[in-house]
């Protein structure tokens, strides 16, 4: 395979006396969907937080495109084209979808007004509408607060927002957890479309059939370590569950 896009080696993360990661490794290649699975408490969310700059690992190394990488904040990751859809969505419920999509990246009016910090709301609304349509997030209205949308629509907005800004890699922490069947299909569809544009997707999920249907590769985390790596086409739900519960280990995985 080609050079890894993002590689983590022997990451450790301690919260006080709790060891959330105990030498976890992780690899993502360009333009693939790789799923990160593991039982509750295996350290998936912590690993994603370390890889997206939300938390700083206690030990271990990261490389990105072959270069050593240190992420001090989510902004560092975003600067490299790495975006994250968090499990708790992290949208501002009182702002409308367009405002949420452009939050932290507002378009300002040209000229003096822009210098004064005046927003170009029209341009943002137009671009947001285009973008939402492209990624199949159908909203009946672009200017109602997010809180007035259904759970699925909120999720679509969060996913669409991250995908809009990612140029290299997107982390998706349980992006389908709260969704109905139809919306779940749509999100999976978005994942494939993003991959086809050459962007790597890291999917965290509990849903094994979903993982197998959408991923190219699967990496398994257990007790803060990587315990197995599979090609999605060559494995089965039984094998994945075996790796997650510790019934099966690969010697070379860590």
């Amino acid at each position, binding site marked *: 395979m080609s050079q890894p896009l993002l590689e983590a080696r022997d990451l450790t993360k301690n919260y006080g006396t709790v060891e959330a990661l105990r030498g976890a490794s992780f690899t993502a290649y360009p333009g693939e969907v790789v799923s990160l699975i593991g039982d509750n408490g295996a350290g998936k969310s912590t690993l994603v937080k370390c890889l997206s700059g939300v938390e700083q690992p206690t030990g271990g190394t990261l490389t990105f495109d072959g270069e050593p990488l240190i992420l001090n904040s989510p902004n560092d990751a975003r600067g490299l084209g790495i975006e994250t859809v*968090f499990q708790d969505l*992290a949208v*501002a419920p009182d*702002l409308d979808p367009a*405002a949420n999509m452009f*939050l*932290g990246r507002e378009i300002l009016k040209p000229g003096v007004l822009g210098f004064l*910090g005046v*927003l170009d709301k029209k341009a943002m609304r137009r671009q947001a509408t285009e973008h939402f349509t492209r990624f199949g997030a159908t909203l009946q209205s672009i200017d109602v607060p997010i809180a007035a949308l259904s*759970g699925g629509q909120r999720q679509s907005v969060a996913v669409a927002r991250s995908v809009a800004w990612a140029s290299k890699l997107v982390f998706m922490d349980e992006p389908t957890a709260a969704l109905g069947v139809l919306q779940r299909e749509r999100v999976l569809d978005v994942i494939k479309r993003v991959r086809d544009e050459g962007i790597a997707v890291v999917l965290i999920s509990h849903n094994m059939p979903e993982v197998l249907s959408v991923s190219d590769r699967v990496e398994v985390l257990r007790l803060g370590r990587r315990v197995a790596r599979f090609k999605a086409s060559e494995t089965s739900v039984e094998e994945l569950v075996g790796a997650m519960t510790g019934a099966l280990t690969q010697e070379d995985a860590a």
Partner: protein
Amino acid sequence: MIEDKTTLSAVPGEPRTSLLKRLTSANTLWIGLVLLVLVATFGAIRPDAIFQVTTLQFLLAETAVLLVLSVGMTFVIITSGIDLSVGSVLVFASVASAMAMNSVSGGDATNAGWGVIAFGLLVAVVSGAAWGLLNGLLISRAKIPALIVTLGSFGAAQGAALLLNNGSNVSGIPDRLNRTFGSGTYLGIPNIVIVAAVVTALGALLLSTTRFGRYTYAVGSNEEAARRVGISVRGHLTKVYLLAGTLAGLAGFMGNAFFRVAVVTGHETDNLNAIAAVVLGGTSIFGGMGSVLGTVFGVFIPAVLEKGLVIIGVKEFWQPIAVAIVLVAAVWLDQTRRRARNQR
């Protein structure tokens, strides 16, 4: 043809809610109507007394100072914070500014010129800003709850103001200041009201059209979300409290111009009046929602009630009771609406 239409409606081109619908769903409109009904009711009972130029002038001028405080408070409450210190900061700025003007004029600034007045304005604004900055830093950096920090500066600023002049009012406000900004009018509108109106308009623009305003809503709506998209939440909170303090300083200077004396008492409940005005105006005490226009209505409802009740001969003691009922009802409505919305 018909098929064309169905496809068009299925593809959301730019699905904007109509202006009318957006207006009627906003709290601001209803609060504005309440104010209008109040004015109309009192006006119908005593048109001679209510629609008198002097009555209106006095009502506006008295309310101008509170309005400036409330504009700052609107920003603070939208971030889901609170600022209890505004009245004390106003007193501190007012005393500091009056004493500064006196001291550069050899003890009595009554006949001082514009240079001294400008210096007084600077002192008022800077001392207000300093208290605001202190509040902001303690809240955003030291992570002490805003309620406690500003309760502390509420006491401290009042105490400091009393220390400055040994507990007495400061006289010697320049005549020129009082004549122009205190009692002067332009086309019948008191100049102090024009100043307040300009500040309010700038505040409204800042909140509704700029990135600063957008971040204010975002921080109040979901602080964590704001942080994750890279907004400096700490920096923004500091700026918001700084703004509230600066406006309190300006309000102190306006008070000096209007009353011709820097008074050390009588502002103990300014903070509560400003909070009540902001909340009456439809700004959510839980943060993330609100408007400066609503605050304008919220400032005038208690003021109109007070004046109106006096004029139609009802004991003015009813005014705080009436305001209290409207206030609690407003928060209750906001809460029910939020709960209904968030349950989807």
